[in-house]
Structure formats: structure tokens, C-alpha cells
């Protein structure tokens, strides 16, 4: 930390117009704002970690405002680049920073630049940039691909990156880090200012921001938030994620407050919660819906109404997560487990935007395990146990895109470019060999069979520099910029009105006449017209629920440890509602309660099948992978595995034969050959390959609305994957896809830690009947293995009843 150095600061800001402006609003400088300014003035990079509502954005801009003001309008060109992961945030920040500049008449020009900026303005910005430009990582990449980069960025003084914690473990982070490395060469004097939420290990984020000379500034934690878990007379369900049981109580809370945000984890939850709240809406509250697949206009409308305070309640997914400034929000409701302590804090931070007053939050668990998780999160916050950040290794696909972009800006020296790229944190361990492979990929595909020599995109010129073979190549690059590859989305239209977009795979499950929830209404699927989903109104109030894949978040490690501690420590059970405590007490009586040291594996027969339930607490992704691998192994052992289901807490496997040697199923060598064999054959790796192929520019990006019609003469990336895997399985794009699969979605690191950690600590508990803790898993299996039509509530209730009888819990659960 830096010494605030009170006196120097007083000199710099006392009597400054900005200070007067702040005072006129009845505010004053926060210490961390002054610290940020001081560190920047000393020529340092700065990482500022501060909670929402702590004047973070103003802190980031403060050095620029002071410097530009001191120059009295004489500064020419681009001085400050502000990067945010959200377009909406750039607009918001433009407005907020604009206030002091305009009210004080400071001699500073400032503009946003995003995909929404009119073409004429973008052209003008290219030749005559404002002093401060607010933009996104993608737009920065685009700016860096223009031939005038050198003069454009030559005077750049500051790069401000907002919501750093949200970007550094993603491919957008990779792209931005490469852009920053580029700027490091183009404008060596530019300092970096990273703005982040409060994180556990700021040093990691600081290293990511810049390899050297970075000061870390921490704002004090805000007042401990006032978090409660919903108290209800209703019974908390065993399984499921929709919280329908709690809607009456949630509505009552919403009604008590002026403005509430109800956060959910998935879009399917958003739709259903929204609908259920309206069912209870006797008081005619203005309740709106906000999620990522709604039409942009609809979302904007909701955002504007929120800002004006014209709404009573908004049901939202993470589409509202990041730091937009809203009108006064009194209450934040979190439906479902928060999955991570930092995420919960960030969401809670949406309420009561004042540092010195506690925010108010209400947690609504959707099932019993989630109750434990909510309690764990609450305890985690009380102990200030925030999550860390885990930046990822840079993707080779993003690297290829960056190399192509660099070539668009002008000829480059390969060795110099390599040296520049390894200054970016995600690529610091990139080998020259892999760099060369990415370069070869950009050149002509980089295949060992060098068939495409005559179609090169770039070549070496007489000076030994790499250059485009034709300026027309830039079009290819610019069409394909960015790292966000959506799964194919279809427009949803009611008559002529576009309601939004929906994943293609969801529609593939539907037959005309089926109903589903979309944009807050039950709509009837009429059919596909070209690439548009046609829907109509329906009187029906029941619907198939969109099974959107998006937004399922993995549980953080911290939180899962807290849940296990809670299970272990009987004193903690006192705070549990009766039915949850009874559940655990019955578990203790009939089996074993999982603890922090050992992994409990239960086995029991049920309805002519055999069950293995492993309580790993390793998170859904890792459990899912574990499930696949154990299925394979059981198959090999002739135990006739049937199916499995994975949650954040456990994995349950069904077999026809009684399983033997349970401990061997969890041996470390699961991650060897079986993993690779399995992975090469999964839809997952194919999805990852498609993403890598689009980002790297192997196949054309599908732009919404410009999709093929009628005859499908385009190719599918799956076919390319199959051929490439057969003929050149170590090609750079296959490696990129495998790296992504290993990292994120199948969570190999987590799984590997788990398997190593549990060796010799597996408690196998053979039971005659299902245990209370396994009931939610069995219900989950029923849900996932029956088609929707079969899953009547009746069936589930019946199953639940028989499970309770079997486990001897039926009396206990009458309350």
C-alpha cells in the first residue's frame, strides 16, 4: 500500500475546481481516490480494488482529469483510453465523467466508441480522436488494426480498464491483454489503471495488469451488508431450481421496498420467477424482466425506466451484474445459491449505493443444499472471505486473431512481435514454437500438408517483415473481430415484432403447438420460417420452460469448503430451519454426514438398480466430468452403468450390476487415457473447436440476420473437426479447443486436485436404502431422465413420498 502523503495531496487537489465541484455536491474525496492520483502522478500503474459505490470510476479518471485540465486544452490527440467489458457501461461512464467536465467547463473532449457509434462519427474519431475515448476490448482491437496506429496512440497517457476482475479469466481478457501489449510498444509512457471489485489476491490482478511497477490501492470494505435468508412457512424443496415455493414471500418483500432487483442465475429462472411474481401481483407493482436474450430495445427500455425510478422491481440475470449505476435500489433478492462470495457481494452492492450505509439483501435458496450454500455465503461474507481471481492461460485462437490484426496495421517483425506478446500476462509462457505455429496458421492454415501455399494471407517482404498479401485481407479480419461466439441464435418474432433471440438447440426440441416462456409471456411455437422462430399469443398459462443453457455458474472453492464446514460443525446446525436440520440429523442416524477431511461415497440398491453417490463438493463441471469418466470405467468393469447426474455437491451414478471396488473408481489414473478418449468424442470438444475456429478465423462468423437460407450448403464445424482430428490431431486449433475444454467446462484442474486429495480418504458407506442426503440426487435423476411431458408434478411428488418412506424421513417432513 501507498502512503497517502496527506500534504502533497492537499496541494494537488486543494482549491482544484474538481474539489470545489465535489464539495458543491456535498461530497468529499475518498482516501483511495487520492492514493490513486498520487500513485499515478509518481508514474506508477495502479490497481484499485474497491466495492461498488466507492467512486471507483472517478478515481480511475482523476489523473487524466487533473493532467488534461492543467494543460488547459493544449493537449492534442488521444490522452486516455477507457476500456469496459460492457457497451452499456461505456455509455454510463461517459455520462458520469461528463458531469464534472461539463459543469466545470473543463477543456477536455470525451466520447464513446462502440459497435453502436454511427459510422460517420467513427471515421472522424479515427482521424481526430477525443482526449478521452471510452470503448470496449473489441473496438480497441479494431483501432489497433488501422494503419495509423503509431501516430494515433503516440501521445496516449492512461489506459483505464474497468471491471478487471470480470475480464481477466476470459478470452476477452486474452484479447485485451494482447492489445495492451501492443500499446506498450506504441505508447511506452502510457500508464495502466485497473479498476476491480474487491478480490482476495489483488497481487495476481496487479501482475496481470502490468509486469512491473504497479501500486495496489484498496478501498476499505463498506459496511457489513445486512443479509437475511428468506424465512418462510413453506417447506424448502428437496430438489429443483425454480423457487416457486417462495414467490409469495418474495413478493411480500418486494412490496415492502421501493425498488428491488431480483437476481437469478439462469434465464429459465428469470422467465419463471417473473411470471410467478406477476401471479401474486395484487398491488399492481411495476415488475420488469431483464436478461441477455431479450431484444436490445426491450432491455434498454427497462434500463431507462430503472434509471428514472419508474419501476418497482426488476427480475434480472447477470445481464445486470456489472457496475451500472441505477436509481436507488432498496433491496436485492438473490434467487438460488449465489455460487460465489464475490459475485454475491457485487450483486448486493447494487442496493443502497452509499458507502456508509449497509446494503440490504435477501437470499432465497431453491432447495435444501442451496440453503446450506446460502448460509455458507453469509458466513463467508461475515468473515470477509472473498473469492480470488484466477487468470487463465491465453488462448491460441485469440493469439492468431491478434497476429492477423497486427498485420493489418502494417508490416511487422516476427521476433519483435513475439517479444511484445510475452509481456502480456496470459501469454508470458508462450513458446516461440507455438507463436510460430499461430503465425503459420494465420499465413495459410499451418497444416503439415502445405497445400495452401498460393492462398497466403500474409507473406514475408524484402525487408524480412511480415505483411498482408493484399490490403483486402483487412476486411476478413474486421468481419471476424472479437472473442464472443454465441451458439447459433434464432430470432423470435410474434407477427412483425421481434421479441429477442433464442438458442437453436432449444427450438430443435419443440414441435409446432408447444408453448414456452419468452420475454415474460407464454408463447406458442408456430414454426420456423427461414431462420426465424415464429410464435403467437396463447391463452394457455402453462408452458414448457426454456431450458436455456446459459448462466449456469460453477460454485467457488471457498464456498464449497464453507458448506462442508457447516456440515461438519454441529453447532452451526442450530441456525438451520427445522426441516433442513431434521434432514441432516436423519442423515447422521442412517449414514454419515460428510465432513471436511473425507469424501463420503454411499452405495445402495433401489428399484432393481444400484446407486453410487459421491459427495465431492467439487462443483458441477468437475462432477459432470467425473461422472462421464466413472461411467466409462464401470462399463469396462462390466458393471452396466445406466446414467449419472451431477450437481455442485455430488455425483450419482446408476448401474444394473452391483458395483465393486468403489475406491478404485476414484483413482488418479482416471485422468489419463480415459479422459482423452472420452474428450475426443464429446459434443463439448466440438463446441470448443467451433469457438476456436471462429475466433482464429478458420470459419466465417455467423452474423445475426445474415444467415444462410434454404439449402444448407455451408459446412458444419463438426465435420471439419472429425477430418482434422483424423489427419492432423496436433493442429494448433485442436490444441486450442482441448485447452479450453480442460480449463473451463470440464474443470480438469479442480477434478485433479480432488482425486489427488481424496486418495486414502474415501469413506465408502454401503446402505440398504437411499440416505436422506441422497434424496435430492435421486429426484434430480428423475427430472433429467424423463421427458418433459412425463415429468408431471404428480410423478415427482409420488417419487418424493416413496423416497421419504424408504429413508425413514416421512414423519419428520410433515411440517
Amino acid at each position, binding site marked *: 500500500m501507498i502512503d497517502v502523503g496527506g500534504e502533497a495531496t492537499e496541494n494537488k487537489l486543494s482549491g482544484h475546481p474538481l474539489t470545489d465541484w465535489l464539495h458543491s455536491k456535498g461530497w468529499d474525496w475518498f482516501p483511495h481516490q487520492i492514493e490513486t492520483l498520487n500513485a499515478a502522478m509518481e508514474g506508477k500503474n495502479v490497481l484499485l480494488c474497491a466495492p461498488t459505490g466507492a467512486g471507483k470510476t472517478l478515481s480511475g479518471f482523476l489523473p487524466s482529469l487533473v493532467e488534461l485540465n492543467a494543460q488547459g486544452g493544449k493537449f492534442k490527440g488521444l490522452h486516455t483510453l477507457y476500456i469496459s467489458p460492457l457497451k452499456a457501461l461505456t455509455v454510463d461512464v461517459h455520462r458520469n465523467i461528463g458531469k464534472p467536465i461539463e459543469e466545470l467547463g473543463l477543456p477536455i473532449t470525451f466520447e464513446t466508441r462502440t459497435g453502436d457509434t454511427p459510422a460517420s462519427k467513427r471515421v472522424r474519431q479515427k482521424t481526430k480522436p477525443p482526449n478521452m475515448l471510452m470503448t470496449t476490448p473489441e473496438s480497441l482491437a479494431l483501432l489497433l488494426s488501422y494503419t495509423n496506429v503509431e501516430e494515433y496512440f503516440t501521445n496516449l497517457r492512461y489506459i483505464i480498464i474497468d471491471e478487471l476482475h470480470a475480464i481477466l479469466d476470459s478470452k476477452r481478457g486474452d484479447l485485451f491483454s494482447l492489445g495492451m501489449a501492443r500499446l506498450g510498444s506504441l505508447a511506452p509512457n502510457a500508464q495502466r489503471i485497473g479498476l476491480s471489485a474487491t478480490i482476495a489476491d489483488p497481487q495476481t490482478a496487479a501482475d496481470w495488469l502490468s509486469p512491473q511497477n504497479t501500486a495496489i490501492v484498496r478501498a476499505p470494505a463498506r459496511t457489513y451488508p445486512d443479509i437475511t435468508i428468506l424465512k418462510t412457512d413453506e417447506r424448502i424443496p428437496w430438489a429443483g431450481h425454480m423457487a416457486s415455493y417462495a414467490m409469495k414471500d418474495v413478493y411480500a418483500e418486494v412490496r415492502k421496498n421501493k425498488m428491488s432487483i431480483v437476481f437469478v442465475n439462469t434465464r429459465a429462472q428469470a422467465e419463471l420467477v417473473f411470471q410467478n411474481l406477476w401471479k401474486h401481483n395484487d398491488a399492481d407493482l411495476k415488475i420488469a424482466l431483464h436478461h441477455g436474450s431479450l431484444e436490445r430495445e426491450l432491455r434498454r427500455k427497462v434500463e431507462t425506466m430503472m434509471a428514472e425510478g419508474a419501476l418497482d422491481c426488476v427480475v434480472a440475470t447477470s445481464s445486470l451484474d456489472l457496475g451500472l449505476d441505477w436509481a436507488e435500489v432498496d433491496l436485492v433478492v438473490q434467487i438460488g445459491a449465489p455460487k460465489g462470495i464475490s459475485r454475491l457481494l457485487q450483486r448486493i452492492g447494487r442496493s443502497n449505493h452509499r458507502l456508509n450505509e449497509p446494503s440490504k439483501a435477501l437470499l432465497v435458496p431453491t432447495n435444501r443444499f442451496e440453503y446450506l450454500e446460502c448460509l455458507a455465503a453469509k458466513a463467508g461474507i461475515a468473515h470477509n472471505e472473498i473469492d480470488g481471481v484466477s487468470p487463465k492461460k491465453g488462448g491460441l485462437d485469440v493469439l492468431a486473431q491478434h497476429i492477423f490484426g497486427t498485420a493489418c496495421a502494417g508490416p511487422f517483425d516476427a521476433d519483435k512481435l513475439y517479444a511484445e506478446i510475452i509481456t502480456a500476462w496470459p501469454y508470458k509462457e508462450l513458446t516461440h514454437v507455438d507463436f510460430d505455429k499461430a503465425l503459420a*496458421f494465420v499465413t*495459410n*492454415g*499451418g*497444416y503439415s*500438408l502445405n*497445400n*495452401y501455399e498460393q*492462398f497466403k*494471407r500474409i507473406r514475408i517482404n524484402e525487408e524480412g517483415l511480415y505483411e498482408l498479401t493484399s490490403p483486402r*485481407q483487412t476486411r*476478413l479480419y474486421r468481419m471476424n473481430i472479437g472473442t464472443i461466439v454465441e451458439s447459433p441464435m434464432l430470432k423470435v418474432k410474434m407477427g412483425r415484432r421481434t421479441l429477442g433471440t433464442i438458442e437453436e*438447440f432449444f427450438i*430443435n*426440441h419443440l414441435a409446432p403447438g408447444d408453448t414456452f416462456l419468452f420475454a415474460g409471456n407464454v408463447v406458442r411455437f408456430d414454426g420456423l420460417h427461414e431462420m426465424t422462430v415464429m410464435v403467437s399469443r396463447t391463452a394457455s398459462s402453462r408452458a414448457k420452460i426454456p431450458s436455456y443453457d446459459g448462466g449456469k455458474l460453477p460454485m467457488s472453492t471457498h464456498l464449497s469448503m464453507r458448506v462442508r464446514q457447516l456440515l461438519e460443525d454441529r453447532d452451526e446446525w442450530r441456525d438451520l430451519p427445522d426441516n433442513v436440520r431434521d434432514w441432516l440429523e436423519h442423515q447422521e442416524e442412517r449414514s454419515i454426514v460428510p465432513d471436511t477431511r473425507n469424501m463420503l461415497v454411499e452405495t445402495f440398491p433401489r428399484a432393481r438398480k444400484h446407486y453410487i453417490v459421491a459427495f465431492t463438493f467439487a462443483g458441477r463441471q468437475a462432477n459432470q466430468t467425473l461422472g462421464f469418466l466413472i461411467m466409462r470405467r464401470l462399463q469396462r468393469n462390466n458393471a452396466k452403468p445406466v446414467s449419472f447426474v451431477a450437481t455442485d455437491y455430488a455425483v450419482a451414478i446408476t448401474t444394473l450390476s452391483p458395483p465393486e471396488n468403489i475406491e478404485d473408481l476414484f483413482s488418479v489414473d482416471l485422468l489419463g487415457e480415459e479422459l482423452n478418449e472420452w474428450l475426443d468424442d464429446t459434443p463439448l470438444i466440438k463446441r470448443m473447436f467451433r469457438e476456436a475456429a471462429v475466433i482464429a*478465423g*478458420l*470459419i*466465417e462468423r455467423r452474423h445475426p440476420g445474415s444467415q444462410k437460407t*434454404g*439449402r*444448407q*450448403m*455451408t*459446412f*458444419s464445424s463438426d*465435420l*471439419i473437426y*472429425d*477430418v*482434422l482430428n*483424423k*489427419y*492432423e490431431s496436433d*493442429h494448433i486449433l485442436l490444441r486450442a479447443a482441448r485447452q479450453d475444454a480442460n480449463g473451463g467446462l470440464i474443470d480438469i484442474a479442480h477434478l485433479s486436485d480432488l482425486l489427488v486429495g481424496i486418495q486414502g480418504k474415501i469413506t465408502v458407506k454401503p446402505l440398504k436404502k437411499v440416505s436422506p442426503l441422497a434424496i435430492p440426487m435421486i429426484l434430480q435423476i428423475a427430472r*433429467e*431422465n424423463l*421427458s418433459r411431458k412425463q415429468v408431471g408434478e404428480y410423478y415427482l411428488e409420488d417419487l418424493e413420498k416413496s423416497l421419504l418412506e424408504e429413508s425413514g424421513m416421512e414423519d419428520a417432513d410433515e411440517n
Partner: protein
Amino acid sequence: MKIDFGGHEFLLHPSGVLFWPEKSLVIVSDLHLEKGSHFALRGFFLPPYDTKETLIRLHSVLNELSAQKILVLGDTFHDVKGFFRLPAEERKLFDKLLRYEPIWIKGNHDGDFVPSGFKAFKSLVLGGLVFNHEAKAGTRLEISGHFHPKVEIVHKKARISRPCFIEDGNKMILPSFGAYTGGLPVTHASFRHILQNPRIYALGEKIYNIQI
């Protein structure tokens, strides 16, 4: 799987070719050879292995069936210049087809190009059956390709997508054979205009007769 079409016995082969035992003739459609290099021309460097993969698979079926003859049902190359981009090894594999008295039906991707050694037709009648690249309205007992039919099935929440033959006793449409050829779902309106109450034969380890 054997089926009767227009009074003749045919074998639907799981690889996606149609075999006519009586004439020892293999009928194959939509190879789209050199599709990879076609895209490479435009800067999208698809793996350059599609032609090799397609032709090796085709030769292995020809061997397996001990076929004497071959008929390619159009769109044999992805574009008019595809033939001239064949690398040496692929060119050899292609020329091996000349041993099978090859018949060339012109497809929309083929233009006027015909490789030497092939007998070319816009449309051909053989044993009372009509061979066209693209099905023609009003033509009876016709075998064609062009549409790349595929069938999408959702079974136990798993989505399976397979190329398929589609046939209603009057018309038959072959699946595409090329390694990089995607498909058009048989539920698409195009098929409704051509076939009535068709039967679907999906490709896999064997042929699956599927109701839709």
C-alpha cells in the same frame, strides 16, 4: 438395407452410396471435392484433407461391394475449377475412378466442366429410372441428390443428426457423400414439395429406418 424402387432391387449402404446389384453400379451424390481449397481461396483455411478423406472412403465402398461401375450424381467438385486444384495424391485417387466406366451427371456446382474419361449427362434414363442432380417436378421414378438430406432426432434428450436417404416409391434423394458437406433437415419445406409420405433411412453403423 435392401429396398425395391421402381421394380428394381437396391442396396442402401451405410456409407451413403446407393448400390444397384443388377448393374453392379454404385451411385453416389454430392462429393463436393476440393471444398476445403475453395474456402482457402477466400481466406478460410479449412483443413486440406477433405478430398482425400472422401475419395478413400469412396474407394473402400467400391471395393467392399465389388462394384464394376460408378455414377456420380452431380456436385462432384465444389466448384468448376476444383478439378484443377487437385493435389497429386488426390489426383491419383480421383483417376482411379476411371476404372469404373464412370458416368457424370451435371450438378449446379459443376458448370460445363467434365473430367476426361467420364460420360456426362444432364439427365439420364437407365432401366426405366431417371437420374437427375436435382429432383424435377413431374418426373416419375427419379433418383437425385442436391439437397443433402439429414435427419435430426431427439431421443432421451440427446440430439442426433445423421445424413439419410429419403424416398417415397416415386422419388429417391441420396445423402451427400463429401467429407465437408452439411445437411438440410428432412423437415424442410423443400422436401415436402418433392416427396409424399416419405420413408427415411438414416446412416450409421447400419441403415436405420426412421419414422418422422
